[in-house]
């Protein structure tokens, strides 16, 4: 094949760029444009379609987009920002700002950081004379719409390009719906809608990304996919077994009460930390911990090991509850690369904040999401010729005579193997449709009412609904929602005599609060301070009292003082510690394909070389159990008074099936491979399943009645029950129709 950028037409790309940009490129010492950059230059400057660039982190996506965009707007004189760059993370904005600053300065194009923590003076300057590029978060756009609608129009409506970074992160979840809605509203006030440029990591389904980027006309989105330059992958999966009778696999070291008091037992995390400490020291690494609690508990252990070994600590935690200062300190330390540093983090470091390349990535707990694993892996092996290194540390429960079949099936081990198989195959799951449609729509309705100072029902519908995030909302749904929001119980909206919708008493309260700008929930929190410095926040439900112990920011503290008025905890260092519980752990959903792959792993007899001895044993134990239960041919297994149904489907189908069982009058709990029906024998279950198998015309709406917690999102309390059910029905209808077949196959 050709070397990059020398394919037909591509070599011309460089010469399309503005002379000052060409000089900048020479100054950078680049010897050539990467292929994706050359293709993007042509797409931006020689065409007028929307563009979706898909490439791994550090493939030069940002430059690819900005070099031609800057060329295109260089001569522009109209007032208002020319380019909006929307990013999910403030840190990412600060990053991009540093990267664009010099280039933009040489071209005399202003660039401004616009988010909650960005300097006011710069924003004010841009407010008075909006021009050039704004690097902005969705929440700041929302704030502008709600608090300064006239400025929003002045600043945003003349944009020629809207660049959306980390687009894959917007494909699921309420924030993606939110951003899509904001894009639509920006278009609505523009004379000429801006071209959209999406920057995405490699994802499973580019079609989805195109629809998200331009719902009205996804075919008009040009896809530019970078050829993957897959580095060599070095991989190890390490197995660990917990001690007997363990309540809490993440408790602080030295804590936890075993059967014999005062004799600390070693739990899996202790041994994992030993290994991390031995292997990772001396280099930059990332350790992904799943939950904030696991992260804190691990970081604490690693710090203690450093202290014990009398070496400088190089392990620091990074998660959403830590103060910005602490997080940035760590990010900078990683990027500078002067001191070896390992960040123990949640998904906070999964998105593309520039932290330089790391030597290896470790993952505590078996992963479920391929998309996320791929992102994490993209952090390593970024220099040519260096391999990607991934270590998976999996924890399995102790097995004794009280243990159930599910524990004995060694699900974590099997899943790890299945994930690695899919990773090597290059599989990435598509994004799931976000269920928070109604809640996010409520948010946007309130926002538009504030932006416009009241609006009629029909114009409000036309502005928000139609192709896009709320496409599934019909006018009838909308009217239903309006009525509910206007009811005495909710009082979010009210109506003037001329039909104008206005904020009601409660709507005004919600709209005035600072937390309104985000569609994700922000709960009340304790602020932890020590010596006048903020460490971060703890959820309100964390029990605090004077002299309470807490592990936080990788250190151990005792609460010296607390102020309920300002919600502040003053802490001082202390040797004892209790790891706080943060967010309720939301299990990542598993894809159908992953669970199917797990079945293949059970059925196979190969022993992958990347497993350590313990993991190999665990794999063998799992397969033995599989064979013992004859799960190859059997789907029903009785255990004590319950019966397990093995469905071998992903989380969504399993949950739907569980709801269908509830409709048939059976209480069931879901697990990785299916559901467990309590207090029933196989013989009693069979006829019910046959009946389900015969329900060829099963009505999804009937099933929806049996789904618990069907109302989701920030404004779930304000979502009318019927609407929640019918939206669920629309999202899960296809799966529901599949229930009879699932029942038949059992």
């Amino acid at each position, binding site marked *: 094949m050709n070397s990059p950028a020398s394919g037909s037409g591509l070599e011309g790309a460089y010469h399309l760029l503005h002379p000052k940009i060409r000089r900048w490129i020479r100054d950078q010492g680049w010897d050539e444009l990467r292929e994706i950059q050359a293709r993007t230059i042509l797409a931006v400057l020689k065409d007028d379609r929307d563009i979706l660039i898909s490439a791994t982190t550090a493939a030069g996506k940002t430059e690819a987009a900005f070099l031609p965009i800057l060329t295109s707007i260089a001569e522009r004189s109209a007032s208002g920002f020319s380019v909006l760059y929307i990013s999910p993370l403030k840190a990412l904005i600060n990053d991009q700002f540093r990267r664009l600053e010099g280039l933009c300065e040489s071209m005399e194009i202003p660039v401004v950081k616009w988010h909650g923590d960005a300097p006011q003076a710069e924003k004010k300057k841009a407010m008075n004379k909006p021009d050039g590029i704004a690097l902005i978060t969705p929440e700041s756009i929302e704030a502008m719409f709600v608090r300064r609608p006239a400025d929003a129009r002045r600043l945003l409506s003349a944009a020629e390009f809207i660049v959306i970074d980390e687009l894959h992160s917007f494909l699921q979840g309420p924030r993606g719906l939110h951003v899509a809605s904001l894009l639509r509203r920006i278009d609505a006030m523009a004379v000429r809608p801006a071209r959209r440029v999406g920057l995405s990591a490699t994802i499973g389904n580019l079609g989805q990304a195109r629809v998200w980027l331009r719902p009205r006309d996804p075919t008009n989105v040009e896809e530019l996919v970078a050829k993957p330059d897959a580095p060599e992958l070095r991989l190890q999966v390490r197995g660990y077994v917990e001690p007997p009778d363990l309540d809490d696999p993440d408790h602080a070291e030295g804590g936890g009460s075993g059967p014999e008091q005062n004799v600390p037992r070693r739990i899996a995390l202790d041994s994992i930390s030993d290994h991390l400490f031995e292997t990772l020291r001396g280099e930059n690494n990332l350790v992904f911990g799943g939950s904030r609690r696991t992260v804190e508990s691990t970081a604490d252990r690693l710090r203690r090991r450093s202290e014990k070994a009398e070496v400088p600590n190089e392990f620091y935690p990074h998660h959403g509850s830590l103060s910005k200062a602490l997080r940035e300190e760590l990010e900078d330390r990683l990027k500078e690369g002067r001191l070896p540093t390992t960040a123990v983090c949640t998904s906070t470091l999964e998105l593309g904040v520039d932290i330089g390349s790391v030597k290896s990535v470790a993952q505590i707990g078996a992963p479920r999401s391929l998309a996320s694993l791929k992102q994490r892996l993209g952090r390593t092996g970024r220099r040519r010729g260096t391999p990607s290194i991934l270590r998976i540390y999996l924890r399995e429960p102790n097995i004794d005579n009280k243990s159930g079949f599910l524990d004995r099936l060694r699900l974590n081990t099997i899943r790890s193997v299945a994930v690695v198989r899919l990773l090597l195959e290059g599989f990435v799951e598509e994004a799931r449709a976000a269920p928070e449609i109604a809640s996010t729509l409520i948010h946007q309705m309130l926002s538009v009412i504030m932006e416009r100072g009241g609006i009629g029902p*029909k114009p409000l519908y036309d502005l928000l609904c139609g192709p*896009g995030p709320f496409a599934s909302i019909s006018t009838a749904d909308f009217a239903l929602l309006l009525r509910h929001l206007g009811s005495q119980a909710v009082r979010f909206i009210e109506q003037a005599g001329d039909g104008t919708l206005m904020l009601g008493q409660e709507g005004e309260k919600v709209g005035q609060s600072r937390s309104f700008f985000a569609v994700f929930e922000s709960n009340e929190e304790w602020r932890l301070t020590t010596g006048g410095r903020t460490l971060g926040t703890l959820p309100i439900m964390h029990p605090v009292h004077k002299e309470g112990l807490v592990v936080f920011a990788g250190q151990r503290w005792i609460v010296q003082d607390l102020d309920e008025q300002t919600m502040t905890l003053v802490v001082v260092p202390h040797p004892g510690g209790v790891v706080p519980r943060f967010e309720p752990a939301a299990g990542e959903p598993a894809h159908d394909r992953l669970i199917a792959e797990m079945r293949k792993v059970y059925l196979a007899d190969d022993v992958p070389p990347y497993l350590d001895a313990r993991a190999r044993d665990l794999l063998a134990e799992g397969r033995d159990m599989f064979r013992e239960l004859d799960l190859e041919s059997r789907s029903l297994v009785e255990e004590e008074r319950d019966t397990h149904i093995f469905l071998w489907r992903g989380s969504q189908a399993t949950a739907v099936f569980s709801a269908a069982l509830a409709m048939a009058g059976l209480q069931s709990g879901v697990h990785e491979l299916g559901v467990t029906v309590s207090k029933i024998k196989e013989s009693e279950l069979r006829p019910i399943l046959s009946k389900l198998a015969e329900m060829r015309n099963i009505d999804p709406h009937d099933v929806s009645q049996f789904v618990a917690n069907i109302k989701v999102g920030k404004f779930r309390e304000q979502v009318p029950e019927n609407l929640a059910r019918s939206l669920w029905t629309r999202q899960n209808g296809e799966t529901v129709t599949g229930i009879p077949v699932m029942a038949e196959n059992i």
Partner: protein
Amino acid sequence: MSKAPKTIKPKERDTIIQALSAGVVPRVGLPHIQVGRAAEIGALVRDIDRIADGGAAVRFVIGDYGAGKTFFANLIRLIALERKCVTVHADLGPDRRIHASGGQARALYSEAVRNMATRTKPEGGALAAVVERLVTDAVKEAGERQVPVEKVIDEKLAPIQEFVGGYDFATVLKAYWRGSEASNEELKLAALRWLRGEFSTKTEANKSLGVRTIIDDDNVYDSLKSLACLTKVAGYAGLLVMFDEMVNIYKLQNAQARKSNFEQILRIVNDALQGNTANIGFLMCGTPQFLLDTRRGLFSYEALQSRLADNQFATKGLVDLSGPVISLQSLTPEDLLVLLTNIRTVFAAGDPSKYLVPDEVLTAFMAHCDRRIGEAYFRTPRTTVKAFVQMLSVLEQNPGTKWQDLLGQVDVPADLQSQQEAVPEGGAQPGDDDELTSFRLGT
């Protein structure tokens, strides 16, 4: 109420017809079509006389959409012009209100002053003429008394200087005079811009005019008072300020913002009722909701509710026009008949021999409206008038058309000020919108 027919000038005639067929209030010729509401007009005329006498007035004109608030207020405005008052008027809107911190109050003031009207300039843009008159008089007086013009201006404007920011009014007028002395149009324009509240920064104003302040959000009411004083000094009777579409305050989506506006209105009401101000009157038009709603209307503000509440004896047709609130009563069928007759007369330019339709059509038309929308058409004449004017226009332009054929096609919709919004790409899906266009939150 109908008087002996008098001729109507063609230009006036066309203006009236054009405006009515678009459902808006004509700028001229209102007396030709006015009917009813004699008592209310009488009360307002007394207000105007009081303004001219150095007093003050405040009135809230309250009526449903299409009840004729704007028509009524404009009629009063024209009467005020006849009686040598200067008028300013503006509609409130999302970006124009009485109190604000983001420039919306200044925007209201600017819009009102741009619309400044006098008898010789009833269509607006009269500020320059008013200022010119003041300055010319001052120059004349200075010549007679052999004193510097600036001294005369200062003397004349002495009363203004007592107001907040009044000192700069004098400075600006002197700048205007210097401008006309030196044929410096730029300076004159800057002075007028300042008076219209079109400077947005003090630095800019200082550079152009040497003043330290500008008319801004926080001194809009004070500036109107200064302006009233200025009109008096210029030889007019006083200033009538008309704010329409007050419902926009009720529509503010922020309780604090509504409260701040109500506080400002309370100041205006108190000053007027207690006689603290001179030569100024306020006429504010709004819907019953704007007045009565206890959550977001004027009545949500206790101090205003107690001052504006109805006279409890004035019910069932009894009226008390001494309070600041004037509720526009519905037109009677007789009033409406006269109104249609007047419109017919306007079409005929006052010549009965050119009537487009015989008398029977007027009653037939009313009967038709009654069948279509019921008694609501008395309360909201706008749509009825619009339909009638359109019918006459067709008859006029298509000689030979039979009115009987047209009447059946006349559609009189209920009066809804439905907002027309820009529809984003892919928004509107015609055909599925019925439920939302007429959507009402359940009672």
